[in-house]
């Protein structure tokens, strides 16, 4: 396995930290900021997953002679 296994831990870490930030901001009474923090964390993780998906599709395209 030559790929970067750290991405898994990064995604899990971002999720946990975002949940913590959400809880803290909620306790401080800033509901809308809490939701923004969640959305931004989600978008960051989404970008990572989409990059992986792109890599997989490129690889399949080269392997299975789709060109």
């Amino acid at each position, binding site marked *: *396995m030559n790929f970067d296994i750290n991405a*898994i831990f990064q995604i899990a870490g971002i999720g946990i930290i975002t949940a913590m930030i959400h809880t803290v901001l909620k306790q401080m009474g800033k509901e809308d900021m809490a939701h923004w923090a969640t959305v931004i964390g989600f978008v960051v993780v989404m970008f990572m997953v989409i990059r992986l998906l792109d890599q997989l599709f490129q690889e399949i395209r080269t392997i*299975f002679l789709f060109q």
Partner: protein
Amino acid sequence: MEIIQVVGLGLLVAILSLILKEQKPMFAFLLTACAALFIFIFLADKIAAVIRVIESLALETNVNLVYLKTILKIIGIAYIAELGAQIVRDSGFSSIASKIELAGKVLIIVMAVPIIEVLIRTVISMLPSSA
């Protein structure tokens, strides 16, 4: 012993996503999708090695390369459809997953039609003519 790595990755992701599901179910879904992509990318390298061998054998035995390309495309469609259907089913939409699988089957049939046509034409040409 790469199977140990794959199993370890699977167990790790299962535990992490159990933790995340308590707080944020969306992140748990993305985590499992990411793990699925990792495993499929890892498998793609292995499949590439097998396909190189099949390709070289086909070149040596003068098989028509169109058939090989069609079969490889069919395998690719099955691979992508399986990945998509499993990720969507993980997130709880098994009806959408069934539609993805149906689309994969239909597209495979469409790709296979020329080969089936050649086969049936060969059989018809072997039949004795009625005249």
